């Protein structure tokens, strides 16, 4: 996976969107060059599939490169991965969550894990849990079509940095490659690569 983190000066949706596209193009370009291919940067474009998920396209090539983009002012994060992977990224401002929000998106196991942590670490862990769920849902291409509580990330909350962890998606365990950064004292970013899923159903009864 190749990721690009950028910082913007203007809190404007259009500016953030364009910065995200540029970061995604840069990550696709770097991924392609890492494989030894020389291409002009101008040949790289970002398109969207039928579900609205972005992917990288090289002019003249038939394959697509998985990408993911996330914005949280002032940061923009993009990542590209190998064509047989599914990648999702997310960057979030660390915050205190309202109790009803925590109850709505955290599983019991996640709440228990975070409750056992020092109090001053809990906002970070709450935000990390959200960010991991978001990056997984984006990797799967389902976004808000799946409730975040259907993704359990408790095993991924420990560790930090680059690691493999078992996640549960609708109760089924998957191994995912995870990267986690505290990009700023006030922000956390995550990137997740999950193995391709050939069958997926949305049955959101919770």
């Amino acid at each position, binding site marked *: 996976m190749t990721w690009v983190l950028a910082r913007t000066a203007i809190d404007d*949706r259009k500016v953030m969107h364009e910065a995200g596209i540029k970061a995604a193009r840069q990550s696709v370009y770097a991924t392609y060059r890492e494989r030894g291919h020389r291409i002009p940067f101008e040949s790289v474009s970002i398109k969207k599939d039928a579900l609205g998920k972005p992917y990288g396209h090289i002019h003249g090539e038939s394959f697509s490169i998985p990408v993911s983009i996330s914005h*949280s*002012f002032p940061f923009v994060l993009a990542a590209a991965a190998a064509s047989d992977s599914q990648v999702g990224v*997310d960057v*979030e*401002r660390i*915050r205190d*969550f*309202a*109790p*009803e*929000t925590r109850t*709505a*998106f955290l599983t019991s196991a996640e709440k228990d894990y975070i409750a056992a942590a020092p109090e001053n670490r809990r906002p970070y862990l709450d935000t990390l849990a*959200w960010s991991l769920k*978001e990056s997984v849902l984006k990797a799967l291409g389902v*976004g*808000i*079509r*799946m*409730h*975040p509580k259907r993704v359990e990330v408790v095993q991924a909350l420990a560790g930090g940095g680059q690691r493999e962890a078992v996640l549960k998606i609708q109760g089924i365990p998957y191994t995912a490659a995870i990267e986690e950064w505290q990009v700023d004292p006030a922000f956390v970013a995550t990137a997740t690569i999950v193995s391709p899923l050939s069958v997926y159903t*949305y049955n*959101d009864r919770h």
Partner: protein
Amino acid sequence: MTATSLMELRDTIIKIISETLGVPREDIRNDSKLVDIATDSIALFELLIKLETALGRHVQYEEIAHIETVGNIISYAETLQIDPAVLRAPQQP
């Protein structure tokens, strides 16, 4: 729903969007895009929770995947046949 109830429903939704996302009511229009007025995905999720509480209904995620604008939320809420008494009840978290 009566016309009055529909107005109450719309006013309730606008009020919740304004209070949850910190956007002045006069800046919220039917064609306002949620991704433009919400700072991030967490804010949108908190909005969903507040709306569920206010409308007294759990929302299936598949049903709201198409929602992009404030108008979409109001149209969706109108299909739920909300009891006006629910809108008038004091909100509990």
